[in-house]
């Protein structure tokens, strides 16, 4: 019963989060004093050197409002917006690349972002936790404080600084990687695959470094606290070896809050990934967003942000549903 209600509660929260997220996405542009349709018409007007008649403009306005779901009152718009997203996953056409649908553009970019993000997060989390465990378990030794120092140095450095420093160090001073990455398109061959990996290494390293510091620090703190728990002392008195105590007693228990923390910090990690993609011109969601923001392509922006909210919420749900596998207390409650 305990497990079932845990899962039901978590899934309920998932839908509420999605609902609030989608509502905010819908409301934001409508609360702004700026109307995207005016922007589009202005752009078209300047391209046509002001030769458009006022009737043509009025006609265009009606068509554009229909295309971008802006006709009817706010409530009608809201219902049709939710319907379009939930049932047909339709965000309308892109303005810059008309008539390419936004959902196709996003679906092209999403695998890139997910691939980069998943790989680097898993590496950073595993590595950071292992280093943090060792630093925390042997926190009285000198070497442990050096490990912690690495964490302290890395943790407060923001993503964009790490990304720019990586470019400076590994592409400019030591030209191991290219200054601007190139990603081949079309049929996948082993050669192209190698090129993609090579070009993804720099943004990957940046993301791993960024996640690494926090994991060391928090795992170290958790391990120090857990080491002083009575059951660890009991295990020592019982004669359990150092290794057994570190892995089976301390690690298992210190890992649980780290899983929760990962689920909670996913939004932050995702932000970092988007930013890293923008700086490295990596062809994921981040780059799509940047191009759309610069070109005033609002449909693409709304589509990208909706997908971001859905992916982060889903990833959080998956992590939280895996939690009972790690923590038997929830299973047997």
């Amino acid at each position, binding site marked *: 019963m305990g497990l079932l209600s845990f899962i039901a509660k978590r899934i309920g929260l998932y839908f509420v*989060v999605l609902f609030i997220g989608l509502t905010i996405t819908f409301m934001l542009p409508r609360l702004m004093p700026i109307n995207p349709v005016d922007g589009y018409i202005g752009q078209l007007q300047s391209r046509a050197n002001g030769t458009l008649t006022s009737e043509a403009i009025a006609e265009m306005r009606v068509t554009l409002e229909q295309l971008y779901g802006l006709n009817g009152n706010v409530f009608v718009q809201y219902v049709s917006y939710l319907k379009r997203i939930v049932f047909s996953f339709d965000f309308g056409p892109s303005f810059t690349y008309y008539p390419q649908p936004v959902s196709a553009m996003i679906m092209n970019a999403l695998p890139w972002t997910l691939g980069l993000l998943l790989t680097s997060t898993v590496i950073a989390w595993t590595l950071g936790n292992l280093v943090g465990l060792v630093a925390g378990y042997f*926190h009285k030794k000198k070497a442990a404080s050096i490990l912690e120092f690495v964490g302290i140095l890395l943790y*407060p450095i*923001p993503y964009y600084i790490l990304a720019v420093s990586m470019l400076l160090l590994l592409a400019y001073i030591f030209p191991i990687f290219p200054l601007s990455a190139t990603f081949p398109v079309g049929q996948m061959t082993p050669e192209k695959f190698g090129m993609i990996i090579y070009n993804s290494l720099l943004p990957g390293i940046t993301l791993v470094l960024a996640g690494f510091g926090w994991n060391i620090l928090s795992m170290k703190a958790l391990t120090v606290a857990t080491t002083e728990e009575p059951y660890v002392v009991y295990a020592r008195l019982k004669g359990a070896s150092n290794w057994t105590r570190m892995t089976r007693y301390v690690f298992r228990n210190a890992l*649980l809050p780290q899983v929760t*923390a990962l689920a909670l910090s996913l*939004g932050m990690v995702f932000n970092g990934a988007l930013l890293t993609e923008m700086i490295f011109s990596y062809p994921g969601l981040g780059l799509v967003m940047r191009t759309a923001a610069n070109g005033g392509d609002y449909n693409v*922006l709304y589509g990208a942000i909706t997908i971001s909210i859905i992916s982060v919420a889903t990833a959080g749900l998956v992590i939280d549903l895996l939690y009972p596998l790690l923590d038997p207390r929830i299973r047997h409650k």
Partner: protein
Amino acid sequence: MSMDVNNLDPVAVVVAPTPASASRGSLVWLVNFRLGLGLLILAIMGLGSFILPNFAPVDPSLQASYMRNLPVSGIHLLGTNALGQDIFWFLVFGIRNSLTLGILVAVGVTIIATLVGLSAGYIGGKFERIVMLFVDTFITMPLLPILIILGALIRGNTSFLTVGIIIVLFGWAWDARTVRSMALSLREREFINMARFSGANTMQILLREIFPYVSAYMVVGFINTVLFAINIEATLAVIGLSKVEVPTLGSIIFWALNYNALFTGQYVWLVAPIIATITLFLGLFLTSTGFNQAFASKRGVS
């Protein structure tokens, strides 16, 4: 120390009290190595960036004040950039503006977070559940895409202050969560009951019992919010969606990247803000953890 998984506060976990040698009496307990180093860095950067601008020869945000791309020299300590601006003065103004924005945002966030967190923690019940639902949604929602939309919509006719207000609106959730879990744990504490049974009224309890306990967390939370705000503004600036004409730690990098400082070999333009940012962030982080450590060890002795 038992871990309450549901109210896990990463800040508190990261800076969890490590037993430090504490001396009794006086203010000596406040001084530890981390705090000292952090405060020193902050003092130098803070005082420098607030006093020096009074001696600036020209407003560094004006373009073409000097010859372009001058090398490092006695007159231009860090040279000039491709826009004819003095990099040193642009950096000094940038640190000042970033710090000011960070502090203003942190004031706003602390007020909202305290109100929301305390009311949720003390009123409890349905109200708390609904409020926490919103807080959790705001925490898990990726902030950057939302800020990118806002930035794209209001770019051009925004002021530097608007950027700050937007960051406040989307940044209060973490702190509200922390305050609420603090309120929850305080509600059940023995010493609060003790004070109440001894005849203290609510005001006295708030001032004498709760405030000293909460103030340490507030200072730590405040500093972390300053870090967060500077970081977010700089992030928006780097991708060109903040008010990039205003010198900040992010807008320097925006201009440097936009004028391809790496390809043209003007590495000072990029390295200087990187070093400044890392130093400032390290100073803020050391101060916040050092302060937490000092308070933890003080609570340990008393």
